[in-house]
Protein backbone atom coordinates (compact mmCIF):
# COMPACT_ATOMS: atom_id res chain seq x y z
CA UNK A 1 0.00 0.00 0.00
CA UNK A 2 2.77 2.47 0.67
CA UNK A 3 5.50 1.52 -1.75
CA UNK A 4 6.94 4.55 -3.50
CA UNK A 5 5.52 5.23 -6.95
CA UNK A 6 7.79 6.47 -9.71
CA UNK A 7 5.86 9.60 -10.65
CA UNK A 8 8.10 10.73 -13.48
CA UNK A 9 6.72 11.15 -16.95
CA UNK A 10 7.73 12.14 -20.45
CA UNK A 11 6.17 14.09 -23.28
CA UNK A 12 8.15 13.47 -26.44
CA UNK A 13 11.77 13.58 -25.35
CA UNK A 14 11.11 15.87 -22.38
CA UNK A 15 11.31 14.31 -18.93
CA UNK A 16 9.47 15.58 -15.86
CA UNK A 17 9.80 14.39 -12.27
CA UNK A 18 6.04 14.76 -11.66
CA UNK A 19 3.02 14.60 -13.97
CA UNK A 20 1.25 17.60 -12.43
CA UNK A 21 1.78 20.84 -14.37
CA UNK A 22 0.21 24.26 -14.31
CA UNK A 23 -2.21 25.02 -17.16
CA UNK A 24 -1.41 27.79 -19.57
CA UNK A 25 -2.99 31.07 -18.53
CA UNK A 26 -3.70 29.83 -15.04
CA UNK A 27 -0.37 30.53 -13.40
CA UNK A 28 0.64 33.76 -15.08
CA UNK A 29 4.40 33.46 -15.39
CA UNK A 30 4.92 31.58 -12.15
CA UNK A 31 6.04 34.26 -9.68
CA UNK A 32 2.58 34.60 -8.21
CA UNK A 33 2.36 30.95 -7.14
CA UNK A 34 5.92 30.76 -5.89
CA UNK A 35 4.84 32.21 -2.56
CA UNK A 36 2.69 29.12 -1.99
CA UNK A 37 5.10 26.36 -3.06
CA UNK A 38 8.50 25.99 -4.75
CA UNK A 39 7.90 25.79 -8.50
CA UNK A 40 10.45 23.03 -8.85
CA UNK A 41 8.14 20.76 -6.82
CA UNK A 42 5.70 20.36 -9.70
CA UNK A 43 6.25 18.73 -13.08
CA UNK A 44 6.42 21.92 -15.07
CA UNK A 45 5.19 25.46 -15.31
CA UNK A 46 3.24 25.90 -18.53
CA UNK A 47 3.36 29.62 -19.12
CA UNK A 48 0.55 31.87 -20.28
CA UNK A 49 0.25 31.82 -24.08
CA UNK A 50 2.53 34.50 -25.44
CA UNK A 51 2.22 36.28 -28.77
CA UNK A 52 4.77 38.23 -30.76
CA UNK A 53 3.64 41.65 -29.58
CA UNK A 54 2.37 42.95 -26.23
CA UNK A 55 -1.43 42.83 -25.99
CA UNK A 56 -4.09 44.40 -23.80
CA UNK A 57 -6.54 41.54 -24.15
CA UNK A 58 -10.29 41.93 -23.86
CA UNK A 59 -12.37 44.44 -21.92
CA UNK A 60 -13.74 43.59 -18.47
CA UNK A 61 -15.78 41.84 -17.16
CA UNK A 62 -13.48 39.01 -18.10
CA UNK A 63 -14.97 36.32 -15.93
CA UNK A 64 -18.24 34.84 -14.78
CA UNK A 65 -18.58 32.07 -12.28
CA UNK A 66 -20.90 29.29 -13.48
CA UNK A 67 -22.09 26.13 -11.69
CA UNK A 68 -18.88 24.24 -10.85
CA UNK A 69 -17.05 26.25 -13.46
CA UNK A 70 -16.16 29.65 -14.81
CA UNK A 71 -16.04 31.49 -18.08
CA UNK A 72 -13.06 33.65 -18.99
CA UNK A 73 -12.39 36.00 -21.81
CA UNK A 74 -8.90 37.28 -21.16
CA UNK A 75 -8.01 37.63 -24.82
CA UNK A 76 -4.37 36.70 -24.41
CA UNK A 77 -3.21 39.79 -22.58
CA UNK A 78 0.55 39.65 -22.31
CA UNK A 79 3.93 41.32 -22.67
CA UNK A 80 4.93 39.84 -26.02
CA UNK A 81 7.56 37.20 -26.67
CA UNK A 82 10.65 39.41 -26.35
CA UNK A 83 9.87 40.75 -22.89
CA UNK A 84 8.69 37.30 -21.88
CA UNK A 85 11.92 35.59 -22.91
CA UNK A 86 14.02 38.32 -21.37
CA UNK A 87 12.26 38.45 -17.99
CA UNK A 88 10.08 35.50 -17.20
CA UNK A 89 11.94 32.49 -18.57
CA UNK A 90 15.28 33.25 -16.87
CA UNK A 91 13.49 33.72 -13.54
CA UNK A 92 11.70 30.39 -13.86
CA UNK A 93 14.90 28.58 -14.76
CA UNK A 94 16.58 30.16 -11.77
CA UNK A 95 13.88 28.57 -9.61
CA UNK A 96 14.86 25.23 -11.16
CA UNK A 97 11.35 24.90 -12.56
CA UNK A 98 10.79 22.94 -15.75
CA UNK A 99 9.32 25.35 -18.28
CA UNK A 100 6.90 24.70 -21.11
CA UNK A 101 6.35 27.83 -23.15
CA UNK A 102 2.89 28.27 -24.61
CA UNK A 103 2.66 30.28 -27.82
CA UNK A 104 -0.32 31.74 -29.67
CA UNK A 105 -0.71 33.58 -32.93
CA UNK A 106 -3.20 35.16 -35.26
CA UNK A 107 -1.55 33.91 -38.43
CA UNK A 108 0.38 30.80 -39.36
CA UNK A 109 3.38 33.05 -39.87
CA UNK A 110 3.12 34.43 -36.31
CA UNK A 111 3.43 30.94 -34.84
CA UNK A 112 6.57 30.36 -36.89
CA UNK A 113 8.01 33.67 -35.78
CA UNK A 114 7.42 32.69 -32.15
CA UNK A 115 9.04 29.32 -32.76
CA UNK A 116 12.09 31.02 -34.25
CA UNK A 117 12.50 33.13 -31.11
CA UNK A 118 12.18 30.09 -28.88
CA UNK A 119 14.76 28.17 -30.82
CA UNK A 120 17.57 30.23 -29.44
CA UNK A 121 16.51 29.83 -25.80
CA UNK A 122 18.09 27.05 -23.84
CA UNK A 123 16.65 25.35 -20.81
CA UNK A 124 12.99 25.12 -21.76
CA UNK A 125 11.47 21.66 -21.83
CA UNK A 126 8.85 21.95 -24.55
CA UNK A 127 6.65 24.32 -26.47
CA UNK A 128 2.87 24.12 -26.19
CA UNK A 129 1.19 25.48 -29.27
CA UNK A 130 -2.19 26.98 -28.37
CA UNK A 131 -4.12 26.83 -31.61
CA UNK A 132 -7.46 27.82 -30.07
CA UNK A 133 -7.00 31.29 -31.48
CA UNK A 134 -8.93 33.08 -34.19
CA UNK A 135 -7.17 32.97 -37.55
CA UNK A 136 -7.29 36.53 -38.85
CA UNK A 137 -6.50 35.29 -42.34
CA UNK A 138 -9.61 33.10 -42.42
CA UNK A 139 -12.60 35.05 -41.10
CA UNK A 140 -11.48 34.60 -37.50
CA UNK A 141 -12.12 30.87 -37.67
CA UNK A 142 -10.29 29.29 -34.76
CA UNK A 143 -7.23 27.36 -36.00
CA UNK A 144 -8.07 24.35 -33.82
CA UNK A 145 -11.51 24.09 -35.45
CA UNK A 146 -10.01 23.88 -38.93
CA UNK A 147 -8.13 20.64 -39.65
CA UNK A 148 -6.08 22.20 -42.42
CA UNK A 149 -5.11 25.37 -40.57
CA UNK A 150 -4.15 23.48 -37.43
CA UNK A 151 -1.96 21.16 -39.44
CA UNK A 152 -0.26 24.08 -41.12
CA UNK A 153 0.44 25.86 -37.84
CA UNK A 154 2.18 22.80 -36.42
CA UNK A 155 4.01 22.15 -39.65
CA UNK A 156 5.35 25.71 -39.60
CA UNK A 157 6.45 25.46 -35.98
CA UNK A 158 8.09 22.06 -36.53
CA UNK A 159 10.05 23.30 -39.53
CA UNK A 160 11.20 26.42 -37.76
CA UNK A 161 12.09 24.97 -34.41
CA UNK A 162 14.02 21.95 -35.64
CA UNK A 163 13.86 18.45 -34.30
CA UNK A 164 14.84 18.84 -30.66
CA UNK A 165 12.23 20.70 -28.69
CA UNK A 166 9.03 18.69 -28.15
CA UNK A 167 5.95 20.29 -29.62
CA UNK A 168 2.68 19.87 -27.74
CA UNK A 169 -0.32 20.88 -29.84
CA UNK A 170 -3.18 22.14 -27.68
CA UNK A 171 -6.57 21.37 -29.12
CA UNK A 172 -10.09 22.68 -28.63
CA UNK A 173 -12.93 20.29 -27.75
CA UNK A 174 -15.38 22.40 -29.77
CA UNK A 175 -15.07 20.30 -32.90
CA UNK A 176 -17.08 17.58 -34.55
CA UNK A 177 -14.18 15.18 -34.98
CA UNK A 178 -11.40 15.61 -32.45
CA UNK A 179 -9.40 12.49 -33.37
CA UNK A 180 -9.18 13.76 -36.96
CA UNK A 181 -7.73 17.10 -35.84
CA UNK A 182 -5.37 15.24 -33.51
CA UNK A 183 -4.17 12.97 -36.30
CA UNK A 184 -3.55 15.97 -38.52
CA UNK A 185 -1.32 17.82 -36.08
CA UNK A 186 0.58 14.66 -35.19
CA UNK A 187 1.23 14.02 -38.88
CA UNK A 188 2.45 17.59 -39.13
CA UNK A 189 5.02 17.02 -36.42
CA UNK A 190 3.45 17.39 -32.98
CA UNK A 191 5.11 15.11 -30.41
CA UNK A 192 2.26 15.34 -27.94
CA UNK A 193 -1.24 16.73 -27.58
CA UNK A 194 -2.69 18.97 -24.90
CA UNK A 195 -6.39 18.24 -24.29
CA UNK A 196 -8.57 20.17 -23.64
CA UNK A 197 -8.72 23.89 -24.02
CA UNK A 198 -11.81 25.61 -22.65
CA UNK A 199 -15.29 24.94 -24.05
CA UNK A 200 -16.99 27.92 -25.70
CA UNK A 201 -19.73 29.31 -23.50
CA UNK A 202 -21.69 32.42 -22.63
CA UNK A 203 -23.49 33.96 -19.68
CA UNK A 204 -26.22 36.57 -20.04
CA UNK A 205 -26.38 39.08 -17.23
CA UNK A 206 -30.05 39.13 -16.34
CA UNK A 207 -29.81 42.67 -14.99
CA UNK A 208 -28.16 44.36 -17.96
CA UNK A 209 -29.86 41.74 -20.16
CA UNK A 210 -26.77 41.51 -22.36
CA UNK A 211 -23.86 39.06 -22.56
CA UNK A 212 -22.02 39.42 -19.25
CA UNK A 213 -18.47 39.18 -20.57
CA UNK A 214 -16.75 42.04 -22.32
CA UNK A 215 -15.80 39.56 -25.02
CA UNK A 216 -19.40 38.23 -25.15
CA UNK A 217 -18.39 34.55 -25.33
CA UNK A 218 -15.80 33.02 -23.04
CA UNK A 219 -14.04 29.77 -22.34
CA UNK A 220 -15.65 27.39 -19.85
CA UNK A 221 -13.24 25.69 -17.45
CA UNK A 222 -13.33 23.97 -14.08
CA UNK A 223 -14.99 20.78 -12.75
CA UNK A 224 -18.06 21.31 -14.95
CA UNK A 225 -16.03 20.31 -18.04
CA UNK A 226 -14.16 17.37 -16.57
CA UNK A 227 -16.43 14.78 -18.23
CA UNK A 228 -15.73 16.44 -21.58
CA UNK A 229 -11.99 16.32 -20.93
CA UNK A 230 -12.07 12.65 -19.95
CA UNK A 231 -14.06 11.81 -23.07
CA UNK A 232 -11.70 13.80 -25.32
CA UNK A 233 -8.59 12.19 -23.83
CA UNK A 234 -10.12 8.71 -24.01
CA UNK A 235 -11.19 9.18 -27.64
CA UNK A 236 -7.85 10.52 -28.78
CA UNK A 237 -5.83 7.97 -26.82
CA UNK A 238 -7.93 5.22 -28.41
CA UNK A 239 -7.25 6.63 -31.86
CA UNK A 240 -3.55 7.45 -31.32
CA UNK A 241 -2.31 5.26 -28.46
CA UNK A 242 1.34 6.06 -29.09
CA UNK A 243 0.95 9.85 -28.83
CA UNK A 244 1.47 11.25 -25.31
CA UNK A 245 -1.31 13.46 -24.00
CA UNK A 246 -1.08 16.31 -21.53
CA UNK A 247 -4.58 16.17 -20.06
CA UNK A 248 -6.50 19.03 -18.48
CA UNK A 249 -9.99 20.24 -17.79
CA UNK A 250 -11.57 20.51 -14.37
CA UNK A 251 -8.93 18.69 -12.35
CA UNK A 252 -9.08 19.74 -8.72
CA UNK A 253 -8.28 16.56 -6.80
CA UNK A 254 -5.96 13.59 -7.11
CA UNK A 255 -8.98 11.49 -8.06
CA UNK A 256 -9.68 13.79 -11.00
CA UNK A 257 -6.05 13.57 -12.11
CA UNK A 258 -6.18 9.79 -11.89
CA UNK A 259 -9.31 9.74 -14.06
CA UNK A 260 -7.52 11.67 -16.80
CA UNK A 261 -4.46 9.44 -16.53
CA UNK A 262 -6.50 6.24 -16.74
CA UNK A 263 -8.19 7.73 -19.81
CA UNK A 264 -4.82 8.23 -21.44
CA UNK A 265 -3.04 11.32 -20.13
CA UNK A 266 0.71 11.11 -19.42
CA UNK A 267 0.64 14.42 -17.61
CA UNK A 268 -2.08 16.60 -16.13
CA UNK A 269 -2.32 20.38 -16.17
CA UNK A 270 -4.24 22.09 -13.39
CA UNK A 271 -5.80 25.41 -14.27
CA UNK A 272 -8.90 26.80 -12.65
CA UNK A 273 -8.41 24.78 -9.46
CA UNK A 274 -5.47 27.03 -8.55
CA UNK A 275 -7.78 30.03 -8.52
CA UNK A 276 -9.78 28.54 -5.68
CA UNK A 277 -6.83 26.86 -4.01
CA UNK A 278 -3.29 28.21 -4.49
CA UNK A 279 -1.74 24.94 -3.31
CA UNK A 280 -3.98 22.75 -5.49
CA UNK A 281 -1.05 21.50 -7.57
CA UNK A 282 0.82 20.14 -4.58
CA UNK A 283 -2.28 18.57 -3.05
CA UNK A 284 -3.23 16.93 -6.33
CA UNK A 285 0.31 15.61 -6.80
CA UNK A 286 0.31 14.05 -3.33
CA UNK A 287 -3.19 12.62 -3.57
CA UNK A 288 -2.40 11.12 -6.95
CA UNK A 289 0.68 9.41 -5.60
CA UNK A 290 -1.33 7.89 -2.75
CA UNK A 291 -4.08 6.71 -5.10
CA UNK A 292 -1.59 5.12 -7.49
CA UNK A 293 0.17 3.35 -4.65
CA UNK A 294 -3.11 2.07 -3.22
CA UNK A 295 -3.89 0.55 -6.61
CA UNK A 296 -0.56 -1.20 -6.80
CA UNK A 297 1.02 0.85 -9.56
CA UNK A 298 4.80 0.97 -9.30
CA UNK A 299 5.06 3.72 -11.87
CA UNK A 300 2.79 6.41 -13.15
CA UNK A 301 3.30 5.23 -16.69
CA UNK A 302 1.64 1.89 -15.94
CA UNK A 303 -1.55 3.78 -15.18
CA UNK A 304 -1.56 5.85 -18.37
CA UNK A 305 -4.48 4.69 -20.50
CA UNK A 306 -5.19 1.77 -18.15
CA UNK A 307 -8.97 2.24 -18.65
CA UNK A 308 -8.50 1.04 -22.24
CA UNK A 309 -7.23 -2.42 -21.30
CA UNK A 310 -8.93 -5.51 -22.66
CA UNK A 311 -11.79 -7.10 -20.73
CA UNK A 312 -10.80 -8.91 -17.57
CA UNK A 313 -10.73 -7.85 -13.92
Amino acid at each position, binding site marked *: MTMPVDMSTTLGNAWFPSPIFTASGC*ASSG*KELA*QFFPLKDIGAVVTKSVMTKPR*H*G*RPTPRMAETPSGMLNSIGLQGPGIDAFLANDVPWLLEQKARVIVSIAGETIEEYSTLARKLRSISGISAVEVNISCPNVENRGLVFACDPDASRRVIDGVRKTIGGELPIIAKLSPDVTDLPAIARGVVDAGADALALINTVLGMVINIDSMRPHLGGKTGGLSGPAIKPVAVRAIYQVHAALPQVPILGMGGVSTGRDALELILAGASGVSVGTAS*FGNPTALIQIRDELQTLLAARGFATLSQAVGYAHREEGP
Partner: protein
Amino acid sequence: MATINKSAVQQIVTVLSNKRVGAYHQILLNVGDIVKSCRPGNFVAISVGGDASKMILRRAFAISRTSDSSQYGGTMELIVAPHGAGSRWLCAQSEGSELDIVAPLGTAFGIPTEPINALLIGGGYGSAPLFGLADLLKSRGCKVDMLLGASVGSKIYAPMEGKRSVNSLKIYTEDGSMGETGRVTQSLLEIIENRNIDVIYSCGPMGMLQAITELVSATEVIHQCAVEESMACGIGICMTCVLPVTKADGTTSMLRSCIDGPVMDGSSVRWDLVGKVPDSL
Protein backbone atom coordinates in the same frame (compact mmCIF):
# COMPACT_ATOMS: atom_id res chain seq x y z
CA MET B 1 11.59 33.77 -2.88
CA ALA B 2 8.60 35.39 -4.50
CA THR B 3 8.17 39.12 -4.65
CA ILE B 4 4.45 38.92 -5.36
CA ASN B 5 1.93 37.81 -2.69
CA LYS B 6 4.93 38.00 -0.46
CA SER B 7 3.25 37.59 2.89
CA ALA B 8 0.16 35.70 1.74
CA VAL B 9 -0.66 32.38 3.36
CA GLN B 10 -3.50 29.94 2.96
CA GLN B 11 -4.96 28.91 6.29
CA ILE B 12 -8.02 27.39 7.94
CA VAL B 13 -9.37 29.86 10.47
CA THR B 14 -12.26 29.92 12.92
CA VAL B 15 -15.20 32.30 13.11
CA LEU B 16 -15.17 33.94 16.54
CA SER B 17 -18.36 35.90 16.06
CA ASN B 18 -20.84 36.97 13.44
CA LYS B 19 -23.12 39.90 14.20
CA ARG B 20 -25.62 41.69 12.02
CA VAL B 21 -24.87 45.40 11.84
CA GLY B 22 -27.44 47.23 9.73
CA ALA B 23 -27.41 45.68 6.28
CA TYR B 24 -24.08 43.97 6.93
CA HIS B 25 -22.50 41.20 8.91
CA GLN B 26 -19.51 41.95 11.08
CA ILE B 27 -17.49 38.75 11.09
CA LEU B 28 -14.56 38.25 13.43
CA LEU B 29 -11.98 35.59 12.56
CA ASN B 30 -9.26 34.02 14.63
CA VAL B 31 -6.35 34.20 12.20
CA GLY B 32 -3.28 33.99 14.41
CA ASP B 33 -0.02 35.41 13.11
CA ILE B 34 -1.51 36.50 9.80
CA VAL B 35 -2.41 39.81 11.41
CA LYS B 36 1.28 40.68 11.66
CA SER B 37 1.48 41.18 7.91
CA CYS B 38 -1.93 42.79 7.30
CA ARG B 39 -2.00 46.47 6.37
CA PRO B 40 -5.05 48.70 5.85
CA GLY B 41 -6.22 48.23 2.27
CA ASN B 42 -5.22 44.56 2.04
CA PHE B 43 -7.92 42.01 1.39
CA VAL B 44 -8.64 38.39 2.15
CA ALA B 45 -9.92 35.72 -0.28
CA ILE B 46 -12.31 33.19 1.20
CA SER B 47 -13.62 29.84 -0.07
CA VAL B 48 -17.41 29.72 0.10
CA GLY B 49 -20.12 27.09 0.10
CA GLY B 50 -18.36 24.24 1.85
CA ASP B 51 -16.99 20.96 0.55
CA ALA B 52 -19.70 20.18 -1.98
CA SER B 53 -19.99 23.72 -3.28
CA LYS B 54 -20.69 24.54 -6.90
CA MET B 55 -18.97 27.87 -6.23
CA ILE B 56 -15.38 27.23 -7.19
CA LEU B 57 -13.92 30.70 -6.77
CA ARG B 58 -12.94 32.57 -3.64
CA ARG B 59 -14.69 35.77 -2.62
CA ALA B 60 -12.66 38.88 -1.83
CA PHE B 61 -13.29 41.03 1.22
CA ALA B 62 -11.43 44.04 2.55
CA ILE B 63 -9.78 43.45 5.89
CA SER B 64 -11.70 45.87 8.05
CA ARG B 65 -9.55 45.73 11.15
CA THR B 66 -7.05 43.44 12.80
CA SER B 67 -6.04 43.14 16.39
CA ASP B 68 -3.27 41.26 18.09
CA SER B 69 -4.04 42.03 21.68
CA SER B 70 -7.31 40.29 22.27
CA GLN B 71 -7.66 37.16 24.33
CA TYR B 72 -7.78 35.14 21.12
CA GLY B 73 -4.45 36.12 19.62
CA GLY B 74 -4.64 37.64 16.16
CA THR B 75 -8.12 38.51 14.97
CA MET B 76 -9.38 39.93 11.72
CA GLU B 77 -12.69 41.68 11.21
CA LEU B 78 -14.69 41.70 7.97
CA ILE B 79 -17.79 43.66 7.04
CA VAL B 80 -19.78 41.59 4.61
CA ALA B 81 -22.83 42.51 2.58
CA PRO B 82 -25.05 39.52 1.79
CA HIS B 83 -25.00 40.14 -1.95
CA GLY B 84 -25.12 36.83 -3.82
CA ALA B 85 -24.88 33.16 -2.96
CA GLY B 86 -21.26 33.27 -1.76
CA SER B 87 -21.47 36.25 0.55
CA ARG B 88 -24.82 35.04 1.88
CA TRP B 89 -23.21 31.71 2.74
CA LEU B 90 -20.45 33.57 4.55
CA CYS B 91 -22.96 35.67 6.47
CA ALA B 92 -24.68 32.45 7.57
CA GLN B 93 -21.55 30.97 9.17
CA SER B 94 -21.82 30.90 12.89
CA GLU B 95 -19.33 30.98 15.76
CA GLY B 96 -16.98 28.04 15.53
CA SER B 97 -17.29 27.51 11.77
CA GLU B 98 -14.07 27.03 9.87
CA LEU B 99 -13.13 29.07 6.83
CA ASP B 100 -10.37 28.59 4.27
CA ILE B 101 -8.73 31.97 3.71
CA VAL B 102 -5.81 33.38 1.79
CA ALA B 103 -4.44 36.61 3.27
CA PRO B 104 -3.17 39.24 3.26
CA LEU B 105 -3.47 40.07 -0.42
CA GLY B 106 -2.99 43.15 -2.55
CA THR B 107 -1.56 46.58 -2.01
CA ALA B 108 -2.10 48.69 1.11
CA PHE B 109 -2.89 52.36 1.57
CA GLY B 110 0.30 54.39 1.55
CA ILE B 111 0.99 55.85 4.98
CA PRO B 112 2.61 59.29 4.95
CA THR B 113 5.75 59.85 6.96
CA GLU B 114 4.66 63.41 7.77
CA PRO B 115 1.57 64.29 9.81
CA ILE B 116 -0.83 65.34 7.04
CA ASN B 117 -4.52 66.16 6.75
CA ALA B 118 -6.34 63.09 5.51
CA LEU B 119 -9.89 62.73 4.27
CA LEU B 120 -11.27 59.19 4.30
CA ILE B 121 -14.27 58.55 2.06
CA GLY B 122 -16.24 55.35 2.19
CA GLY B 123 -19.23 54.15 0.19
CA GLY B 124 -21.38 51.38 1.68
CA TYR B 125 -19.21 48.60 3.09
CA GLY B 126 -16.29 50.53 1.62
CA SER B 127 -15.94 52.17 5.02
CA ALA B 128 -14.76 48.83 6.40
CA PRO B 129 -11.01 49.27 5.84
CA LEU B 130 -11.11 52.97 6.65
CA PHE B 131 -11.42 52.67 10.42
CA GLY B 132 -8.25 50.60 10.70
CA LEU B 133 -6.59 53.11 8.41
CA ALA B 134 -7.85 55.99 10.56
CA ASP B 135 -6.27 54.44 13.66
CA LEU B 136 -2.95 54.14 11.91
CA LEU B 137 -3.02 57.66 10.46
CA LYS B 138 -4.00 59.05 13.84
CA SER B 139 -1.09 57.25 15.47
CA ARG B 140 1.19 58.95 12.94
CA GLY B 141 -0.16 62.32 13.99
CA CYS B 142 -2.40 62.93 11.01
CA LYS B 143 -5.69 64.78 11.18
CA VAL B 144 -8.38 62.43 9.96
CA ASP B 145 -11.79 63.47 8.66
CA MET B 146 -14.28 61.00 7.28
CA LEU B 147 -17.20 61.06 4.88
CA LEU B 148 -19.45 58.02 4.54
CA GLY B 149 -22.20 57.57 2.01
CA ALA B 150 -24.75 54.95 1.05
CA SER B 151 -28.14 54.66 -0.57
CA VAL B 152 -29.89 54.12 2.76
CA GLY B 153 -28.98 54.43 6.42
CA SER B 154 -28.78 50.71 7.04
CA LYS B 155 -25.91 50.56 4.55
CA ILE B 156 -23.78 53.03 6.49
CA TYR B 157 -21.19 51.13 8.46
CA ALA B 158 -19.77 53.33 11.21
CA PRO B 159 -19.02 51.52 14.45
CA MET B 160 -18.82 53.48 17.68
CA GLU B 161 -15.22 52.53 18.44
CA GLY B 162 -14.23 53.54 14.95
CA LYS B 163 -15.48 57.04 15.40
CA ARG B 164 -12.90 57.69 18.13
CA SER B 165 -10.07 57.79 15.64
CA VAL B 166 -11.62 60.43 13.44
CA ASN B 167 -11.79 64.13 13.93
CA SER B 168 -15.08 64.47 12.20
CA LEU B 169 -17.50 62.13 10.56
CA LYS B 170 -20.10 63.21 8.06
CA ILE B 171 -22.74 60.85 6.73
CA TYR B 172 -24.71 61.10 3.49
CA THR B 173 -27.57 58.92 2.34
CA GLU B 174 -29.36 59.18 -0.95
CA ASP B 175 -32.77 58.79 0.63
CA GLY B 176 -31.95 61.01 3.58
CA SER B 177 -32.65 58.25 6.08
CA MET B 178 -29.38 59.03 7.89
CA GLY B 179 -27.16 62.14 7.92
CA GLU B 180 -27.39 64.53 5.02
CA THR B 181 -29.40 63.76 1.91
CA GLY B 182 -27.13 63.25 -1.07
CA ARG B 183 -23.72 61.94 -1.97
CA VAL B 184 -20.27 62.12 -0.45
CA THR B 185 -19.06 64.04 -3.44
CA GLN B 186 -21.50 66.90 -3.24
CA SER B 187 -19.45 69.27 -1.07
CA LEU B 188 -16.12 67.57 -1.57
CA LEU B 189 -14.18 70.48 -3.03
CA GLU B 190 -15.35 72.78 -0.24
CA ILE B 191 -14.34 70.29 2.38
CA ILE B 192 -10.92 69.83 0.79
CA GLU B 193 -10.44 73.54 0.77
CA ASN B 194 -11.80 74.24 4.26
CA ARG B 195 -9.84 71.50 5.91
CA ASN B 196 -6.66 71.75 3.93
CA ILE B 197 -6.81 68.15 2.84
CA ASP B 198 -3.54 66.68 1.54
CA VAL B 199 -4.59 63.11 0.82
CA ILE B 200 -7.89 61.40 0.14
CA TYR B 201 -8.22 57.71 0.94
CA SER B 202 -11.33 56.18 -0.57
CA CYS B 203 -13.06 52.86 -0.83
CA GLY B 204 -16.43 52.14 -2.34
CA PRO B 205 -18.26 51.69 -5.62
CA MET B 206 -16.25 52.34 -8.76
CA GLY B 207 -18.58 55.23 -9.71
CA MET B 208 -17.77 56.98 -6.45
CA LEU B 209 -14.03 56.51 -6.91
CA GLN B 210 -14.23 57.90 -10.43
CA ALA B 211 -16.29 60.89 -9.30
CA ILE B 212 -13.78 61.71 -6.54
CA THR B 213 -10.89 61.39 -8.99
CA GLU B 214 -12.55 63.80 -11.38
CA LEU B 215 -13.36 66.30 -8.66
CA VAL B 216 -9.83 66.40 -7.26
CA SER B 217 -8.09 66.34 -10.62
CA ALA B 218 -7.81 70.11 -10.60
CA THR B 219 -6.43 70.16 -7.05
CA GLU B 220 -3.12 69.12 -5.51
CA VAL B 221 -4.78 66.42 -3.47
CA ILE B 222 -3.45 62.89 -3.73
CA HIS B 223 -6.18 60.31 -4.11
CA GLN B 224 -5.55 56.74 -3.06
CA CYS B 225 -8.52 54.57 -3.81
CA ALA B 226 -9.25 50.91 -3.20
CA VAL B 227 -10.90 49.57 -6.34
CA GLU B 228 -13.24 46.61 -6.63
CA GLU B 229 -13.07 44.52 -9.77
CA SER B 230 -14.51 41.06 -10.20
CA MET B 231 -11.73 38.64 -9.21
CA ALA B 232 -11.41 34.96 -10.03
CA CYS B 233 -8.20 34.20 -8.11
CA GLY B 234 -7.13 37.18 -6.01
CA ILE B 235 -3.48 36.14 -6.29
CA GLY B 236 -2.49 37.40 -9.72
CA ILE B 237 -2.68 34.27 -11.84
CA CYS B 238 -5.89 34.67 -13.84
CA MET B 239 -5.82 38.19 -15.36
CA THR B 240 -9.55 38.73 -14.91
CA CYS B 241 -9.37 41.69 -12.52
CA VAL B 242 -7.56 44.17 -14.72
CA LEU B 243 -8.00 47.93 -14.90
CA PRO B 244 -6.54 50.35 -17.45
CA VAL B 245 -3.84 52.27 -15.61
CA THR B 246 -1.51 54.94 -16.95
CA LYS B 247 2.09 54.28 -16.11
CA ALA B 248 4.87 56.76 -15.48
CA ASP B 249 5.87 56.67 -19.15
CA GLY B 250 2.38 57.73 -20.19
CA THR B 251 1.38 54.40 -21.68
CA THR B 252 -1.72 52.62 -20.46
CA SER B 253 -1.61 49.01 -19.27
CA MET B 254 -4.22 46.61 -18.04
CA LEU B 255 -3.00 46.07 -14.46
CA ARG B 256 -4.29 43.42 -12.10
CA SER B 257 -6.28 45.00 -9.31
CA CYS B 258 -5.45 42.06 -7.01
CA ILE B 259 -1.69 42.60 -7.23
CA ASP B 260 -1.20 46.19 -8.34
CA GLY B 261 -4.32 47.04 -6.36
CA PRO B 262 -6.79 47.18 -4.77
CA VAL B 263 -5.19 50.43 -3.58
CA MET B 264 -4.24 52.51 -6.58
CA ASP B 265 -3.51 56.12 -7.32
CA GLY B 266 -6.91 57.42 -8.48
CA SER B 267 -5.36 59.75 -11.03
CA SER B 268 -3.54 56.89 -12.73
CA VAL B 269 -6.69 54.86 -13.36
CA ARG B 270 -8.17 55.46 -16.79
CA TRP B 271 -11.75 55.51 -15.51
CA ASP B 272 -12.99 56.38 -18.99
CA LEU B 273 -11.58 53.09 -20.27
CA VAL B 274 -12.90 50.77 -17.55
CA GLY B 275 -14.85 48.08 -19.38
CA LYS B 276 -13.04 48.99 -22.59
CA VAL B 277 -9.49 48.37 -23.78
CA PRO B 278 -6.84 50.98 -24.50
CA ASP B 279 -5.78 51.45 -28.10
CA SER B 280 -3.68 48.59 -29.27
CA LEU B 281 -0.08 48.60 -28.19
